[in-house]
């Protein structure tokens, strides 16, 4: 449901917007061409699939309880992504924009904090490493 190996298509996420919604806030996380001072060529996203699904579902439903009129949809891609491709999409809709922005921002913050997904950065020189956000930069693995 929330995880996909295919390029993320916003259309089905936006199709969930309800007639009572006046504001839709979308966040796209995109593969950047650099990180921690090094050039990035591509990123491999690896997930603990069943748990990642469950965590994303929990995040979306918790946010809808916290902003009772909001609707939150999440997609996260796995596999090898090139620079410019979207790794994650959050679509939060609500009657008014303040709730849509707040729910969308909270969603991506929580996704980054708790969903069991990891990313390995590949560089032009062929080297790669798993990214460790707790270290503020990349940690080189073999």
């Amino acid at each position, binding site marked *: 449901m929330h995880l996909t190996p295919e390029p993320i298509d916003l259309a089905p996420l936006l199709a969930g917007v309800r007639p009572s919604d006046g504001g839709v806030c979308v966040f796209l996380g995109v593969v950047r061409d650099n990180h921690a001072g090094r050039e990035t060529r591509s990123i491999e996203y690896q997930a603990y699939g069943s*748990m990642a699904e469950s965590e994303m579902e929990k995040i979306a439903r918790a946010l809808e309880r916290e902003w009772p009129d909001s609707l939150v949809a999440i997609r996260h891609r796995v596999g090898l992504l090139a620079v410019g491709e979207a*790794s994650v999409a959050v679509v939060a809709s609500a009657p008014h924009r303040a709730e849509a922005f707040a729910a969308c921002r909270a969603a991506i913050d929580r996704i*980054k904090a708790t969903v069991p997904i*990891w990313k390995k950065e590949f560089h032009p020189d062929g080297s790669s490493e798993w990214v*460790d*956000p707790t*270290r503020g930069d990349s940690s080189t*693995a*073999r």
Partner: protein
Amino acid sequence: MTIRLLYFATFRDVAGRDGEDRRVAPGTPVSALWRELVAEMPGLARTGSMPPAAVNCEYTGPDTVLADGDEVAFLPPVAGG
């Protein structure tokens, strides 16, 4: 009893495998399993403390006692988004 252990990201690289079925003694808490694994694969313990752990796809604490058939994973720092 037997649990299913899963490895991801750096832990998978250190272990050299995606997962394994593993025998553990009844009453084993998550923290004891972690200590066993580190004893076998010191490369797992890049940080001093036990990493976040999940049992049956739920985050859980170090004192959770494992049950037969549990799916267990220790999680390197997540980096989704």
